Structure formats: structure tokens, C-alpha cells
């Protein structure tokens, strides 16, 4: 056995991670702002309680929401005051934002249910929306599940097709020559254009919806994947060859990871388009889902229900976005952080 190099690098200094929470939560911790944000919630509660309403609204859910929000912030702030580190950074960073939310809650409540300054019934108070969500929770939950399932299936199908086509077009000239011109012409057509046809072509509306959403996804993914493959340095392919990689190993170990940063750009672009297509296709073709719920609520003239569905979508799509973002961070952890 050979003896080791006399390298003095015993401690992996460069591996000591610069705290990411430090750069992410950059606003300094100030007790003042923590207290102000709690105060705005107290004001919101008292305002809702004391200012007489113009119309009949059940405010119980809203008040419970305020109490829960207040309790959550208190816990976070107390934890931040006691424990140092990430919790403290987090609790300090968002204090000002929380204060702004409290103020906005007061303003919207006054403008809608208290003084009806803005036109009813098209604008409703957050209290009404929450009450509606509570009354309608079974149907809303079912609609949310249905939308989520439809989106997930379609998005995964579209992404897989997009990545596969992109990898082949990026890697193989022959395939690129024959497929790219046709796929480009087809892919550039907005998915919604196919709606009238899919309604009659597909045996069920569910299949038609899957097709439409997947269609909105595959093209941006494929397009970015091609660019990703073509941007991979020739050195990596040549290294792979001198290391004895077979073609399938090159695909798995060089082409896919090398194109991954671009693939994610495609996936995030496609995500926005897929949400659009999900709602549109549910509004037009479906008997279930949040898009259908909105359309049905509009039909019966209940705009509070429309808002309820919008709020749920905002939450649902934000969660999907954050999860994808986390997944991207993990999958691309080998990249040098730029900040």
C-alpha cells in the first residue's frame, strides 16, 4: 500500500456551511415589531367585534382565525425570544410582514362588511369567505382533492414526456432532425386551442382534461431539456468515454444530471401553464374540482363561494410551488450557491 500524500488539509474548512437561514431571514430581530404585529391582530379583532356591520355576517370563524393567528405568532415570538438561532431569525424576519397582514385585515373588513364602500356582492369580507369555507367544507375538500389528483397525474405525464423527448432530441442528431420541426410546430399551439376537439375525441372528459394539462406541460419542459443537454460541456462526455461508460450510463450519469438545472427551469415554467389549464379545463368540461366549483358558484350568483375557491387555490398552488422548490434545491445541491 502506498503512503498518503502529506496533505495538511485535515479539516474540511470549505465544507462548513455558511448558514443559509442567515441570508434567507435577513431582517433583524426587533421586539418592537413583534409587539406591533400582535397589536394589529388585536385591533383587527376589536374592530370586527365593535364596529357594527351593514349586513348579516357570521363572524365566528373569522374571530377564531384571528385568535389562532395571534396564538401562533405569540408562540413563535416567545420561542424566538428564548431560543437563539434559526427560530429567532425566522421570528424576527417576518414580524413586519405579519403587521402588514393585520392592517390589511382591518382595512378589508371596514371596506366590505362594515361600511360596504365597495360594491356588494362582488366584494366580500374575509370573514364571509371563512364562514363560507366552513359551511361548504365537505364539497370544497372533495373539489380540492379532485383538482390536486387531476393536476398531479397530468403534470407527471407531461413532465415525463417532455423530459424524454428533450433528452432524445438533445442527444441524438437524427432524432432531433426528424422530431424537432414537427414537435415545435405542435408544441407552440396553446393547449386551450385543443379544447373543442378534445371534448369530442376523448371518451371521457377526465381523459380530455389530462390531455390538455399534460399538453401545456410537455413543450416547455422538452424545449428547456434540449437546451440543457446541448449546454453540457464536451469534456464530461469525453471523460465518461475514457472511464468506460456505456451509452445508457452516459444518459443516466452525464446527460440527465447535466441537463437538470435547465429541466427545472422548464418544469417551473410549465407549472404556471398547467395551473391555468387545470382551472380552465375544469371550468368548461368537468363536474368536479375547484374550477368546476367556481363556475357553478358563479352560475348561482354566490360570489363568496368563488372567493372561497380562490383562497384555496392560492394555498394549494403555493404549497405545490414550495414543494417543487424544495425538491429542486435537493436535486441541485451539487451546484455552487451564488449568494
Amino acid at each position, binding site marked *: 500500500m502506498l503512503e498518503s500524500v502529506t496533505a495538511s488539509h485535515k479539516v474540511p474548512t*470549505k465544507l462548513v456551511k455558511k448558514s443559509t437561514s442567515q441570508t434567507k431571514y435577513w431582517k433583524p430581530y426587533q421586539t418592537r415589531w413583534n409587539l406591533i404585529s400582535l397589536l394589529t391582530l388585536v385591533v383587527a379583532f376589536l374592530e370586527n367585534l365593535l364596529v357594527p356591520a351593514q349586513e348579516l355576517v357570521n363572524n365566528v370563524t373569522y374571530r377564531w382565525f384571528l385568535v389562532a393567528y395571534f396564538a401562533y405568532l405569540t408562540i413563535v415570538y416567545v420561542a424566538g425570544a428564548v431560543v437563539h438561532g434559526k427560530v429567532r431569525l425566522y421570528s424576527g424576519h417576518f414580524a413586519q410582514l405579519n403587521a402588514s397582514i393585520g392592517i390589511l385585515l382591518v382595512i378589508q373588513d371596514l371596506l366590505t362588511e362594515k361600511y360596504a364602500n365597495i360594491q356588494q356582492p362582488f366584494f366580500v369580507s374575509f370573514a364571509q369567505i371563512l364562514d363560507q369555507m366552513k359551511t361548504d367544507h365537505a364539497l370544497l375538500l372533495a373539489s380540492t382533492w379532485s383538482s390536486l389528483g387531476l393536476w398531479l397525474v397530468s403534470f407527471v405525464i407531461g413532465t415525463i414526456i417532455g423530459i424524454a423527448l428533450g433528452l432524445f432530441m438533445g442527444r441524438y442528431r437524427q432524432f432531433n432532425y426528424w422530431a424537432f420541426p414537427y414537435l415545435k410546430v405542435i408544441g407552440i399551439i396553446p393547449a386551450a386551442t385543443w379544447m373543442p376537439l378534445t371534448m369530442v375525441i376523448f371518451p371521457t372528459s377526465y381523459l380530455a382534461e389530462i390531455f390538455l394539462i399534460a399538453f401545456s406541460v410537455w413543450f416547455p419542459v422538452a424545449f428547456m431539456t434540449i437546451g440543457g443537454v446541448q449546454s453540457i460541456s464536451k469534456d464530461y462526455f469525453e471523460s465518461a468515454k*475514457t472511464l468506460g461508460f456505456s451509452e445508457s450510463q452516459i444518459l443516466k*450519469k452525464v446527460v440527465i*444530471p447535466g441537463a437538470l438545472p435547465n429541466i427545472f427551469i422548464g418544469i417551473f415554467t410549465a407549472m404556471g401553464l398547467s395551473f391555468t389549464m387545470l382551472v380552465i379545463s375544469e371550468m368548461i368540461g368537468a363536474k368536479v374540482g375547484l374550477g368546476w366549483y367556481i363556475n357553478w358558484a358563479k352560475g348561482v350568483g354566490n360570489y363568496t363561494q368563488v372567493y372561497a375557491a380562490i383562497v384555496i387555490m392560492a394555498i394549494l398552488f403555493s404549497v405545490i410551488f414550495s414543494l417543487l422548490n424544495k425538491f429542486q434545491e435537493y436535486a441541485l445541491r451539487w451546484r455552487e450557491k451564488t449568494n
Partner: protein
Amino acid sequence: MVQLAVENVDRVLDDNNGQKINVLEDINLNVGSGEFISIIGPSGCGKTTLLRLISGLDTPEKGRVEVDGNVIDQPDVSRGYVFQHGSLFPWETIKDNISSGLKATNGRNYDKKLVDHYIELMGLKGFENAYPHQVSGGMAQRAALARSIVLNPELLLLDEPMGALDAFTRADVQDVIQRVWKQTKTTMILVTHDIDEAIYLGTRIVVMTPRPGRIKEIVDNPLEFPRKRTSDEFLQFRRQIQDKLNF
């Protein structure tokens, strides 16, 4: 490998204006088992081009490159290649990079002990799970070296692996290469534009001249091991090579 033979090789490439230029002209070189060949010459004289022909990444327009009588026309694991810029896979950890060739050729049952051995030998312990951008340039080059040497090649081609390193790190990596060469008896061909490096490591020095790239002279290195960069013999031989490079 018993014998590498480069015979009457020309490499003709298109320049930016579509003109044909002879990057290499009439290259002849025979390398026997266990030798350490240093190829030295100014930038742009065709050193990389020649190394690529030997590896099989490119094929010559004229002439032949053979190992033991077999024409080389594609890369092979028996000929390791350490690229000028290392080219570790940035998406794999140091350890995964070093084992990548073994995994590719032997599947899951590759020799993990061998990988650990070279991680230890190359001074990379503690950095197994680091990604290439997290380690220093010297470490990255040692890892690239380990990735090739772990495959036990008959011939190892080194394209200025120390080119981007500072003087201290460079001497460190040179010693690693020399130690590996002595212990494994792998035939090595090193491309460099550093005269000291060529002399310190090579058993023979190939001096190249540019436009067109030709071999001017092949000089036997008379220096015994262990070599000292500051000894009189070293400096004298260095002057001799320096004179051949001034044209």
C-alpha cells in the same frame, strides 16, 4: 501494454476561415511499458491534439496510432485520460466521481476498498462527500487523477493536470503522480509547458515545436531518482532542454 507506436501521424483541422491547417505533422513516437514520457512545447503546438489521438478521442488524417499492434480508433478504459481542467462531474461527490469508472465497468460489485485506498492516498479523506466546487483546485486534480488510476489503466495520459495550480500545490501533485507511477508501474505520458515539471517526472522528454506541430527532439533524462529540483545536474539538464526550446 508492451508498446505504444505513433507512426507518421498528421492531424489536419479546419481553422476559423475554413482553411486546412496541419496541426500535427509527421509525428513518430514509440513508448515502452513503464516509461514516463514528458511532452513539452509552447502553447498551441499540438500537445493536446497528440494526446487525444493516443487516447482514441480523435483519429489522425494520416498515419497510425497502435498499442501492441492494434490500431486505436476509440477511447478505452485501458487508456486513462486526465483532462486539462480536471472535468470531474460537478453533480457527483468526490467519492462518487472516483468510483464512477469502476461502477460503469464492474457494476455494483466494484472494489470499494480500492476507492477508499486512493481517497486516502490522494489526501482526500474527509472530503469524500464534498462536491467538486467545494474543494480546492489541487484536491480536484488529485481526485481526477484517482478517478483514472483506480481503473488500473495500462497507459495514463495527463494533459497539463497541474496547469491551473499554484507552485506549492503543483509540487504536491507532482509528487503524488511520481509515487503512483513508481508503485503501479503504469506507463504515463504527461503534457506540460513547465520545463521543471517535465524534467522532474519524465524518463524521456519529447520537445515539440509549433506551426506545424512537430517533434523536434526526444531526449533521454539522465537524472537518477530521487530527483532534486535544485541539484546541479538538474539545473544543467534544464539548461540543455531550455536551449532546445529556443528556436
